[in-house]
């Protein structure tokens, strides 16, 4: 079954025909050309596909594309402006919070989801917000440090 849906992706309104059984992750990557959400476990365990949906972090592998009709979707592609990295991106670079990079877009979107609703989280709150994002290089300490750095500066 095909459904015509309209959603705002990274500030741009897009209308696409999607199949009932296709996930938001699949449609973002294969129909809308947005590849920062990664295909990891496709089970909601790893968080590599995390995007913001109406401002909240969600696993795009656990959302049917048709459910996103009318939604506002934000991915890491939308963060840098005019060649300037977003403070979270800058902090990840400065803290060497990136190793292979596969988990990074999801980590950053989960962190943004947290800072948007809670600009000054504690370390425990950061860890809780990132608990659904796995880094198989296991570089968690630097990732948490990077998020805390932005939280302390309060400029996310």
């Amino acid at each position, binding site marked *: 079954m095909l459904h015509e849906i309209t959603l705002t992706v990274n500030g741009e309104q897009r209308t696409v025909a999607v199949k009932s059984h296709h996930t938001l992750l699949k449609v973002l990557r294969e129909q809308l050309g947005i590849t920062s959400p990664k295909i990891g476990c496709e089970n*909601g365990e790893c968080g590599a596909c995390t995007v913001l949906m109406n401002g909240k972090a969600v696993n795009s592998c656990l959302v049917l594309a048709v459910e996103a009709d009318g939604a506002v979707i934000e991915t890491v592609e939308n963060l840098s402006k005019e060649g300037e990295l977003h403070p979270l991106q800058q902090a990840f670079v400065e803290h060497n919070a990136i190793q292979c990079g596969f988990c990074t877009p999801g980590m950053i979107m989960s962190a943004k989801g947290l800072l948007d609703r809670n600009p000054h989280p504690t370390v425990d709150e950061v860890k809780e917000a990132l608990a659904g994002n796995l880094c198989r290089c296991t570089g968690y300490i630097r990732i948490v440090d990077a998020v805390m750095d932005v939280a302390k500066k309060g400029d996310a």
Partner: protein
Amino acid sequence: MQPFDYYKPKTFEEAFDYLTLPGKTVFPLAGATDFIPSYRDGVWQADAVCDIKALPGVRDLRETPEGLWVGACVLMSELARSPLVRAHWEVLAQGAEVVGSEQVRNRATIGGNMCTASPCADTPPPLYVLDAVVVLKSKAGERRVPVTEFFTFVRKTVVQKGELVTGVIIPKPPAGTVGEYHKLSRRQGCDLSLVSVAVLAAPRNGGYDWRIALGAVAPTPIRVPDAEAILSKGWDAASIDEAAKAAEKTAKPITDVRSSDVYRYEMVRNLTRRAVRSVAEKLKK
């Protein structure tokens, strides 16, 4: 993923027509966080899904004369962060905030958590001690089922084909009620419960009415009347130990990939003792 059709009705009449389409298996869809993996892995079969999120009242979270109305599609993250829930139904907020990850809590719903009926689900034990009532609707009308009668076995509930859970009504506990939900899992974040315990102490006739429910240690959540009776007479250290032992006796855990039954028995005792002590500490304040 194998194809299926998708419907999103705006009225209950329309929804019941979809759910009873002749010759079709139409699966009610709320947050989809259980549906997508279970369908893809072939655990659940469906010709179509009926997305219930646009139905009237299912997103509402509000206080009514009967208590708290939690619509079936209220999110775990909404329950966890609602000041209203935190103020009067704290134990439910505690259960909701330890479901899955933040991403899952932003999609997963209370109706889905109940209808999936996993024994290790985190919102049912709090609902058990809060004496919640489940509201179901079908073409035939509405019926109400006490939450303690809602689950019938592992992944089985009283919900009939063509019927939907529309929400839960939770009576407002008397002022001075305190509760705690404790969950044990292999790691602290984003994991399923090995054992969970909900404890509530509600003021009654100058004393306290204690309620205890266990999760993940039987085919359905279970109340522990023996432990409740012991504590309702007093909660000195010896009584707390007795109550914890009673909880261990009531539990019927299995051995699975997450832990052995032997370990779970011990943890039921420890976790019950710990949760009751936390409630007792709160009562002293």
